[in-house]
């Protein structure tokens, strides 16, 4: 019996024009994994596989120790799933939805639900059909968070939200993290949101996992280095270069293995060493991955 909240090994899922291939990842209790990829990278497919909404063609998936999709009904008792596309039942009010979900989940936290209604400025009497985009996402989140799930699977939950609504939603996620036994798998192409709440980040592109690592590790390892070479000088052979752009004597290098030793190799020529944002790391990583795969 494993204590991982999500385990995927060698998962493959093929569609006519897209294949998610050889995906392996795991999520430990208390961990927040930001799942980052461009549009069409396979983020939603991965999350739907985790929720048992689609079955893999190959590989193994376990969520909270349960095999998916075979035991999805059992696993989903303790999983909260939210996607940006998700709508409530159009002919019912938010209040009805709250009563409905409460009647299914014994762990429903009525006090927390009431607090979220207030914090998100929602009206329980409002019909689901008349909710704006922001209200709809907040309503779905309310219905999910008040169940107090052990695992939250969030498929681009902040897409389309204005900055204030995004702040409110992200703050609630951070609140969830006060409890070490809960975990979040959070997909997005908004790296700012991911960087804010994740402690582990996984990049995916064109159906393949590019890299998965600790957030701090990513931010520590990746650097952009600007050099000015003397006239006629050549760069020494450098390991672990992700990219290199040269314009006359000015060179810009990107490395994913920055260290003091690396800097020492270039010391006399270095003009500036810059930390990279998660977005820059993501783009550089994806571009390298595509180059390596020859596409």
């Amino acid at each position, binding site marked *: 019996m494993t204590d991982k909240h999500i385990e995927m090994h060698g998962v493959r899922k093929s569609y006519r024009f897209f294949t998610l291939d050889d995906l392996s990842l795991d999520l430990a209790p208390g961990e927040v994994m930001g799942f980052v990829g461009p549009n069409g990278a396979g983020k939603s497919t991965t999350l*739907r596989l985790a*929720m*048992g*909404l*689609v*079955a893999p063609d190959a590989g193994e998936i376990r969520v909270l120790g349960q095999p998916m*999709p075979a035991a*999805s*009904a*059992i696993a*989903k*008792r303790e999983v*909260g*799933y*939210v*996607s940006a*596309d*998700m*709508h*409530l*039942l*159009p*002919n*019912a009010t938010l209040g*009805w939805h709250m009563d*409905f*979900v409460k*009647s*299914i989940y014994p762990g429903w936290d009525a006090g927390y639900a009431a607090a979220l209604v207030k914090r998100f400025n929602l009206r329980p009497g409002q019909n689901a059909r008349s909710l704006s985009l922001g209200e709809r996402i907040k309503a*779905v989140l309310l219905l*999910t968070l008040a169940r107090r799930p052990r695992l939250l699977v969030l498929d681009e939950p902040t897409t389309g939200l204005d900055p204030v609504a995004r702040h409110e939603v992200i703050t609630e996620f951070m609140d969830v993290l006060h409890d070490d036994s809960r975990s979040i798998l959070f997909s997005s192409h908004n790296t700012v949101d991911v960087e804010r709440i994740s402690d582990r980040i996984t990049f995916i592109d064109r159906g393949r996992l590019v890299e998965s690592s600790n957030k701090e590790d990513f931010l520590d390892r990746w650097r952009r280095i600007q050099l000015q070479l003397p006239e006629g000088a050549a760069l020494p052979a450098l390991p672990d270069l992700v990219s290199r752009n040269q314009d006359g004597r000015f060179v810009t290098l990107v490395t994913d293995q920055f260290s003091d030793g690396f800097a020492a190799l270039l010391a006399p020529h270095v003009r500036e060493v810059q930390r990279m944002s998660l977005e820059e790391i993501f783009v550089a990583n994806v571009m390298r991955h595509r180059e390596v795969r020859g596409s």
Partner: protein
Amino acid sequence: MNTVIRKLIAKELHVNRLLVGIGVVAGIGSTVVAAFGPVGFNIGALTWLSTIIGMGVILSLYGIMNERKEHALEFVMSLPLSVAGYVRAKMIGLVLCFFITWSVSVAAALVLVFAKDSVPDGIAPYLLLLSVFMLANFGVVLGGTMLARNEGTTTAIVIITNMGVTLFMFIVAPMRGIREFMWATAPVWNSTFWAVLGCELAVLVISLTLPLLIVARRRDFL
């Protein structure tokens, strides 16, 4: 049957309550209208038929297709429920919604037949066969909509089943065992009646069972 399935069945009754209420009122109202002379009978009979057929189509399209189109299905499937559980809850919930309108409308029509002297009681078996045919027809629309992956297929199923009602009238009404006793003073429950009823019930059972066997085994539900 687990709690989630029971709650989802209750959910169907809740979200469709207005539609079911309108159907019940229309079913009874059309029967009342049918009691007032030949013109009233024609108008009432047409409204009665349209109510039952329309109810079946609206429930299937609204309850299944719209839920998918409007992404409310993702919300439902986020609940602790398997695909098989969802299909079972949806089928039972919508059949119950339809059954309320259908049974009240059929009961009202039978009351009209037996209470009104100008309408021969012998028409009751034909009325029952027509009613059960529409129930089976609903089963086909419901099962077909559940199995269909696109709107085009669902539309085709609706058109074909609607034509089926007319075909039923053309084929079953002239049957010897039906036609000969339609104007009798008392209903005749002969072998022709039972054979047609058996066929209708078989279609109903198959159409409601197939989605449970097929959809529940699909590898990609959403």
